């Protein structure tokens, strides 16, 4: 099989979210002498990019995005050690700690944000739903995150986004992280009022917002 057709197959299996076939294809590709870096950049990444574009056109939805992300993450468990061994580690765009705030159980928007961030090359630590402010902060510290992204769907859970910022301020580490907020109940006005670093009106806005703030690099001087 030519390298080109292998890349096409890798891309197609990512788009199909077929993790088992993806792993088998990677195994074959490695045996054919294709580098882990090329497997990712020439095969898998175009597939992820395509999923993102189809999602933006409403041609695929959350299941396809989640399945592609699961397949990607499974593949990276095999490929990352090989990249490390070769001294060619893939540069991550950034690390994001993601979750829906305390007392809020809405997950769909947050999951879409997670998928879009992964497609854009971020490493995402998804804490799930009903996440306390301190848990966001602790995870961000643990993984040396760049961004904390918090979703709130209700007017009565929005204050928990403010609480995350207050926890960061209380520990004297506010400037280490970009804090992005979103969710149905939130607005730009609200984000401004709590001094968040960015606001995503829709889940689809999240990745471009994250890329935008991280490219500014005003936070985390040591990073």
């Amino acid at each position, binding site marked *: 099989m030519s390298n080109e057709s292998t890349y096409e197959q890798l891309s197609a299996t990512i788009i199909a979210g077929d993790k088992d076939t993806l792993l088998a294809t990677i195994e074959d590709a490695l045996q054919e002498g294709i580098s882990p870096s090329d497997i990712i950049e020439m095969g898998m990444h175009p597939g992820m990019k395509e999923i993102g574009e189809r999602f933006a056109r*409403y041609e695929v*939805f*959350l*299941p*396809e995005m*989640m*399945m592609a992300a*699961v397949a990607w993450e499974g593949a990276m468990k095999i490929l990352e050690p090989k990249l490390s061994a070769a001294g060619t580690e893939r540069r991550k765009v950034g690390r994001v700690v993601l979750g829906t705030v*305390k*007392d*809020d*159980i*809405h*997950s*769909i*928007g947050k*999951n*879409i944000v997670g998928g879009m961030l992964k497609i854009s090359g971020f490493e995402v630590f998804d804490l799930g739903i009903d996440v306390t402010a301190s848990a966001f902060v602790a995870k961000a510290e643990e993984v040396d995150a760049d961004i904390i992204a918090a979703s709130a769907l*209700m*007017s*009565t*859970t*929005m*204050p*928990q986004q403010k609480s995350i910022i207050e926890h960061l301020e209380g520990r004297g580490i506010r400037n280490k992280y970009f804090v992005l907020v979103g969710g*149905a*109940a939130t*607005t730009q006005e609200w984000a401004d009022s709590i001094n968040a670093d960015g606001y995503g009106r*829709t*889940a*689809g806005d999240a990745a471009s917002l994250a890329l935008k703030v991280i490219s500014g690099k005003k936070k985390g001087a040591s990073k």
Partner: protein
Amino acid sequence: MISFETVVERALTGQICSEQDFDLEVFVPNLRRMIDKYAIKYDPENPVPADDELADRVWAAAMEFLSDTGVYCADTERIIRFTNDEIEQALKGGPCGVVFGEGKDAKAMPRRLPEDKTPPWCSVGAGGSPVSSEWNLLNLVKAYAENPLGDSITTPSLTNVDGQMIVAGSPLGIEGAIRTTLLSREGLRRAGRPGMPIVNGIASAVRSQEHIAGHRFGFRRTDALEIGTFHEMKVDFDSLNKVAYSLAAGSLIFAENGVILGGLSGGPAGTAVVTAAYNPVDLLILRGAVQHPFPTHFDIGTTSTRDTIWARSLANQAITRNSPVPVVNIGYAGAGPMTKMIFYEYAAWVIGAVVSGGSIEVGGSARGVVVDYTSPVEPLFASEVAHAVAGMSRREANRIVVALLEKYESQLHHPPTGQRYQECFDVFTGTPSKEFIELYRQVRREMTEQFGLKLQHASLYL
């Protein structure tokens, strides 16, 4: 029907499964299989389908999907499963003619069929949209209740207690729930309709303790607590606790299912199937007297998009042709008060819902999330439209909905927010501004001249 205790037991002892495995290994493949097996395909040309055979296929797909999939309990990480017999038994014994409200405002909830001439139930109000002050909440509830076509009230959500933002799960959540009940009751009294049922109890409440607190301060057995599943096919202890309390208190339940189009259910076909599959879940788990669905677009955040109208209309037809559980659809518009677009959005989804066998709850303006962007005029207009189209054929409704979509579809990504309640209304006298009355008059005229709708003169404002 199996007991609620049996449901709880299954939540505690059912098959263990991680949430991600439930989503991606159980829910998604089962749903895809059903969509293929029953050949359910979105038809954007016909947002209000008129195919009974398709509706029955959606129902068959939904029942098979439910028995194959079950419902996930997030707190125990277990699957609550039901047999086909249990589902059928629940539907056979489903609620019929349940009376909501008291005194002269008491009324039986109708079961409607597609193209039914029976007037739809109209729940009027804010659908939990946030308001900035108790004064606004009180005046809005009074004005909603003055709508003579209104059968029940859906109250706004208070956002603060004496200037402090309400935080879910905190004592402010408890106090906010109590005040919401007390103020809503007072608003109904001032409107001269003290027996009118409140059916979205309790608007500001998130946690079960807040529902219970609000209930204790003036809720009646003929009001309804609104208790929901979450995305998708999931419950948790908190939702089960609300049900347990409501059963013990002898109160009624509006069982809410907001399937997200674009979420785990995928596109319009999956959204229709999952919305229908929730119908027996609302009986078996949530113990509802009413199914209260609102398929919502994941990106646009409204129920007025072409694909959500299709999914809602089709699911309504599937449910109402096959289940005794009445459907009261709630909806959200992108635009805010004092815009033409909001009237078009409400008219479009309301028409699709009503001719497909549903009743309505209107509703959430400006996606139901922007503080004070709600007014009594939109639910008044929506209830007038709902009554006007009872008995209309689905084909005729489809023609109107397509024409309405052409008026607003291009603006859905950036809808006009319009004006706050206090900007488009005199909050002291409870009357809309002259400009708002004129806009309302214009849109009513359009409905008659362009679509032949004979709107009842329900309005206090004309």
